[in-house]
């Protein structure tokens, strides 16, 4: 029995992995094709992946799809990073409702952006500056939360409560400051709050791509401590793992990932909450399997959401684009609801 179960777990993992990888490629190609100049996804696929086999590839297709590469990659990797951060936060807090923003990182990032704009309005002209400030702000939030939690004992409950305190304080502060900022830069501050990939530049992607990949690998390597930690502090301790160290490592990984995504595309809700649940439904809670699947699921859903954002803005002709977070909720929630129902019937 145990052998069959083990084989089945591994089989499920590889089936999910390959299905999701293929799905990811399809979604990315579609994302490269969708925009004001619609391309045929088949041609885009040829132009990008089979360029060396076909000499007759239309160069305009290649260059148009390359223009969309930055936002496609940004949505895929931010989705992946947020989902991994969400999974780690859920593990750390042992709370299936935890999400990447539970430590208040998003609010401190926003606060720091608002302060930067108020101090020096010309500062916001360079996107790179904003990214850096948001990143520093998010990490500052993490340091505040962790220090507060340490004063309160350092266990997972202390961490959650400290996060709630930091989140509510800075969400209030950031809204006050952003209200002021609105007058300075004359754009509605909703865009900072709900996330958008339209402003990401290709040359910035290195700061998203490499850290996400590196932290993903580190997280997978720590799968045993994370698995042991799921069943309680004392349980991890008596297997020879130090629960406080596990919390620290996982929280740091999750916070850096969240900080990066907040800096790049703002706050995208729901994906960090839903993707881990979807992954667990396929491959169970063993982090060895759930970490890679969660990142793929998150990347795919966020990329689909970004495609939908573009389609809606093309057909509805509203002002600007819809925030990404709106669409991730609309796509992710029904799917999550379906999984919750199926799981309880299984």
């Amino acid at each position, binding site marked *: 029995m*145990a052998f069959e179960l083990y084989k089945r777990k591994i089989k499920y993992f590889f089936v999910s992995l390959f299905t999701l990888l293929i799905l990811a490629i399809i979604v990315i190609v579609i994302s490269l094709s969708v925009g004001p100049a619609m391309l045929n996804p088949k041609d885009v696929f040829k132009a990008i992946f089979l360029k060396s086999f076909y000499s007759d590839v239309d160069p305009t297709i290649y260059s148009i799809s390359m223009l969309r590469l930055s936002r496609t990659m940004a949505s895929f990797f931010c989705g992946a990073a947020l989902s991994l951060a969400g999974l780690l936060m859920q593990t750390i807090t*042992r709370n299936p409702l935890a999400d990447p923003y539970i430590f208040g990182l998003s609010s401190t990032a926003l606060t720091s952006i608002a302060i930067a704009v108020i101090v020096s309005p010309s500062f916001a002209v360079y996107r790179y500056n904003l990214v850096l400030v948001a990143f520093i702000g998010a990490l500052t939030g993490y340091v505040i939360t962790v220090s507060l939690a340490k004063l309160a004992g350092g266990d997972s409950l202390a961490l959650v409560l400290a996060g709630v305190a930091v989140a509510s304080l800075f969400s209030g502060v950031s809204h006050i400051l952003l209200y002021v900022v609105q007058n300075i830069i004359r754009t509605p501050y909703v865009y900072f709050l709900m996330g958008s990939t339209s402003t990401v530049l290709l040359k910035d992607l290195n700061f998203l791509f490499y850290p996400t990949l590196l932290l993903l690998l580190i997280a997978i390597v720590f799968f045993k401590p994370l698995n042991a930690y799921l069943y309680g502090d004392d349980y991890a301790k008596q297997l020879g793992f130090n629960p406080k160290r596990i919390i620290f490592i996982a929280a740091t990984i999750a916070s850096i990932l969240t900080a990066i995504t907040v800096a790049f595309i703002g706050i995208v809700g729901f994906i960090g909450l839903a993707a881990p649940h979807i992954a*667990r439904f396929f491959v169970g809670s*063993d982090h060895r399997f759930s970490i890679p699947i969660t990142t793929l699921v998150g990347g795919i859903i966020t990329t689909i959401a970004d495609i939908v954002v573009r389609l809606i803005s093309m057909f509805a002709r509203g002002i600007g684009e819809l925030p990404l977070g709106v669409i991730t909720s609309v796509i992710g929630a029904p799917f999550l609801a379906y999984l919750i129902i199926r799981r309880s019937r299984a």
Partner: protein
Amino acid sequence: MKIVISGVEVWYNSVKALDEVSAEIESGEMVFVIGPNGAGKTTLLKTIASIVKPSKGVIYIDGKTLSEIPQREIGKIIAFVDPHISRSIPSTVFEFLLTARYPHQNTFSISQSPQDVEIIDSIAKQFNITHLLNRRLDQLSSGELQRVLIARAMVQQPKILLLDEPSAFLDLRHRLETLRYVKNVVKTNDITCLVAIHDIYLASLYADKVVIMSRGSIIAFGTPDEVLKKEILEKVYNVRIAYVDVNGRKVIIPIEPI
């Protein structure tokens, strides 16, 4: 392995949980720890498992102090069965049992050796939980969970086994079966075993030695016949006690609070 507890004192903030506790437990002995609620039974087990650090005193395992043994090594030697595990993130019994092999593996290796799965397979059969392996921990009945928890400790293959309330939630048959099985494993593998328990009858059935604790101190320590005496139990529990003879065995019956 031989456990020597020497002058151990444990504080939870300003509450003293263990007060100058000293005892020697021989290798391969099955020792039952009894006593009223809050006597320090669980704390004693947790201190030996190195989950709780004593503020005074030392615990020696085969002559080495606990703090000398690396944390990773303790996972190989000692298994503590905690009835309170977290089940808020859904996971299956099989996933839970796999974690018990971690102390014997390299922390960072991804692959699982077939032997590990084999051990889980055979222990699941012995505990009659094979049909539960693919069930979620949070959907088990308390009795099923209790068996899974004890099976987990067996999967860990420890040299020292610490059981906290193993008979709680089990029905009559499973109580006897589980403890008899534990006793068998303990004797054949020369495991030192401490059991914190409320059921004095089970203690008298399976214990080599019995420890009676009250208010953080050891009141009596010896064979069941030496220790499970009317005057000691009445004093410790504040309950009037009577003996009943069943098949030549003296069974202790609580009558009324004093």
